[in-house]
């Protein structure tokens, strides 16, 4: 069983790294980019009986700081 967790800064929380990437893209001539948000992808190798609820609990307790970050879980069989 595998799971992929996406962790992103919540909307409204300044993402200075994303902003820096947006600036760089603009400077390179990619002028069709209105915004960039940079997050994290965390891949988990899990025991066969692990459930999405287990992974959600991991996200809430450690993988994401829900004060500033949102997360999504993708179970991959």
């Amino acid at each position, binding site marked *: 069983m595998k799971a992929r967790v996406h962790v992103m800064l919540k909307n409204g*929380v*300044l993402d200075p790294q994303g902003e820096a990437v947006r600036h760089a893209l603009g400077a390179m001539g990619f002028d069709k980019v209105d915004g960039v948000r940079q997050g994290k992808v965390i891949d988990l190798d899990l025991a066969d009986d692990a459930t999405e609820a287990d992974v959600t609990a991991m996200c809430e307790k450690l993988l994401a700081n829900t004060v*500033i970050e949102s997360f999504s879980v993708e179970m991959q069989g």
Partner: protein
Amino acid sequence: MKAAVVVFPGSNCDRDLAVAFEQAGCDVSMVWHKDSALPEGIDIVGVPGGFSYGDYLRCGAIAAQSPICQAVVDHANRGGYAIGVCNGFQILTETGVLPGALLRNAGLKYICRTVDLEIATADSVFTDGYSAGDVIGVPIAHHDGNYYADAETVAALQDQDRVAFRYVDNPNGSVADIAGILSENRRVLGMMPHPERAADAGHGGTDGVAVFRALAGLVTAA
């Protein structure tokens, strides 16, 4: 007054914090991150600066899950005193003892210099050696010192007079210029600047001494 300073893998201001406590007259024990209890009769816990667990995942996130941190949280929950500086502040927000979170500096750069801090309230054991409105010089050294909390939390901090220090010239984008905050019972202080690095004339300044000096007069054990 008995103080404990927690040491994580990656702590680098632990000794500085211990010396600042000692100079203020405290009896100091160092406590290892794998310990699950604080020594008997500890009045105040210091959570030092550094890069606990290499700052992996997020600053302070893994430290917040260490065995000793549960003991620190229990100490705070039963009304004990605690101070978290820099990475220690990040750890205290990650444990939920203090509200909010620390984001990457708005300018994306690591900043290491002395900044001016305004004493926002003198109504705490950490700041009663100052007067509200005093401006002191204290070093900062951080990459993730941009204090963030939602509007409701910031309003509550302000309404309850829980902002301890404000940056005079905000270096990192912190919301409402917040450099340090107090817990609801005013016994836990978290701050990004390093008062322990301004606690000896050899440091180039002693403006941080009062943060520790007031503590030495405390006798109430949690």
